[in-house]
């Protein structure tokens, strides 16, 4: 293949500078941290928040997949004004600051809120419980997956779906064997982004679910009680848990984009 006539050296330089700017704090932390003391903090105070975060995030992500996938599909292909309005309304939680989401959740799901009182009739509480954490994670992360799914389904050539239906394959099997595989690169990246957002959810979580402590809340508690060294150790734990899936999904998409050329 011929090399491009114009080598965008300035753009490459800008790319490297931006990357360095974003990564330098993280790299300097990795270079200076005392790993034995980090390990000690992880063992003594990291276990319980880690388990809480992972459980809640797993449930949140299952709900997000279950609701967000069909929602993304219909946002991409649904006809009529209703879907335009739904798309617009979904932007609101996406654009709202997490702290505001937390306060609204407290207002609605808290002990004195409308839904809080409804839940209490069933012996449930959405304040300082696992349910509260999951609710906060959902509100913060679901739009990320839904909009990624919408974009992914939009990129699937609809002729492939029509071919499948025309060959006598049912809509469900068409969805499973044609639409989903073709949309999978975008869906996986959207899922990974929503996962990173959910496991790192803090603003809404701390308002409505101080307990049970998730990892981000524990980091904030460690920062206020022990200062930066204790908080940084837990921060590293969060990074170790939260980063691999999104990074792997981006790399996977890069290497598989030519395999599924739409």
């Amino acid at each position, binding site marked *: 293949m011929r090399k491009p006539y114009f080598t965008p050296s300035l753009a490459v330089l800008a790319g490297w500078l931006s990357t360095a700017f974003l990564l330098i704090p993280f790299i300097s932390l990795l270079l200076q941290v005392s790993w034995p003391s980090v390990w000690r903090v992880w063992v003594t105070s990291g276990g319980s928040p880690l388990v809480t975060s992972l459980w809640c995030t797993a449930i949140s992500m299952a709900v997000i997949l279950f609701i967000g996938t069909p929602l993304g599909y219909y946002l991409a292909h649904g006809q009529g004004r209703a879907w335009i309005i739904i798309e617009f309304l979904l932007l609101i939680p996406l654009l709202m600051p997490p702290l505001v989401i937390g306060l609204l959740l407290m207002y609605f799901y808290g002990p004195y809120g409308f839904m809080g009182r409804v839940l209490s009739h069933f012996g449930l509480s959405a304040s300082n419980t696992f349910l509260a954490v999951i609710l906060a994670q959902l509100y913060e992360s679901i739009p990320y997956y839904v909009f990624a799914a919408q974009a992914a389904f939009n990129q699937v050539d609809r002729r492939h779906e029509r071919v499948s*239906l*025309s060959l006598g394959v049912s809509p469900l099997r068409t969805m499973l064997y*044609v639409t989903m595989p073709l949309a999978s690169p975008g869906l996986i990246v959207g899922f990974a982004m929503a996962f990173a957002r959910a496991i790192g959810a803090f603003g809404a979580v701390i308002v409505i679910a101080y307990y049970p402590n998730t990892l981000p809340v524990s980091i904030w508690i460690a920062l206020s009680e022990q200062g930066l060294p204790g908080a940084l150790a837990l921060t590293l734990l969060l990074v170790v848990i939260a980063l691999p899936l999104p990074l792997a999904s981006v790399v996977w998409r890069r290497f598989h984009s030519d395999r599924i*050329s739409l």
Partner: protein
Amino acid sequence: MSCGGGFTLIEFRCKLPRRAFTLDIALQVNPASVYSIFGPSAAGKSSVLSVIAGFENRLHTAYLSVNGRVLIDVKSGHGLNVSAWRRGVVLMEQGATLFPHLSVRDNIYFGVRTKRDPWIEAWIERVGLGPYLDAKPSQLSGGLTQRAVIVRSIVGRPEILLLDEPFSALDWSLRRILQDAVMDLQNDLGTTIIMVTHDLAEAQRMADEMAILNHGQILQYGAPEHLMMHPKSWEVAKLLGYTHLLTDGNGQTFAFHPSRVVPEAQPDLGPVLQGTVKEQFLHEADRRVAVYLSSFNCELEIAVPTGYTLHIGQTFAFTVVNPPYVY
């Protein structure tokens, strides 16, 4: 090829508002025949196939029965409209490609439960796909992809096959090969084919019956040869390649086609015209001659045999053979 015998396999009527016009057509197709819908771009041809295949949900008035089974019966926007996947009608869309994430074999057998069928395997070998069954679609040329798309379409032995400009992206020789393959398939299966095309030669070569569609209306239908010889209006004639509307010695208007002429004056064959040769050039295997007709004050092209010698500026008489008289 048509076994007609008075029995109609497909009966279709439809009114469907489009952006620029309302598609308003009715057609009847005999079993085991090839029915071609011919017309210019944006005439509504693909919409017809889309409705028959079941991909149009906003129907106002439509009726479709296949072999006595009613698939669409919609009046004033309400009624029966059987889902596409339950119709047993296979649509091969314009520009349809293979599923990019599946191998060629998985593509071909996508619509059926089996992964090996001797009849299909024979067709795979016949169209030269044998060595490519494990390849991904991205590794196939355009011609091989189109062959695989055709074989995929017939894997379930459909009673009706809808072809929407099936070979439009291919070169001339490959078109001929695939046209022959489709005709052979049609003979082999007894499938009824409705084919949309804007290529007149393709429609004429493949169709038992042909409808000429423009602005959502069928202008005329019948056997391809009958249509070519007897277009009933100037609008139809133009779509079939007639270039000028001229008048004979009796003052009657006839449509002129560049290929329906013989050099020299032969009044027993049709009207004789005389003009001055302005230009001549090759047109595939023919020679085209641009002739200025002073009596009509217009210039037209005629086809003459390649070896026929003419000179620029020469006065030249030719006969329009049995032209259609249209208005």
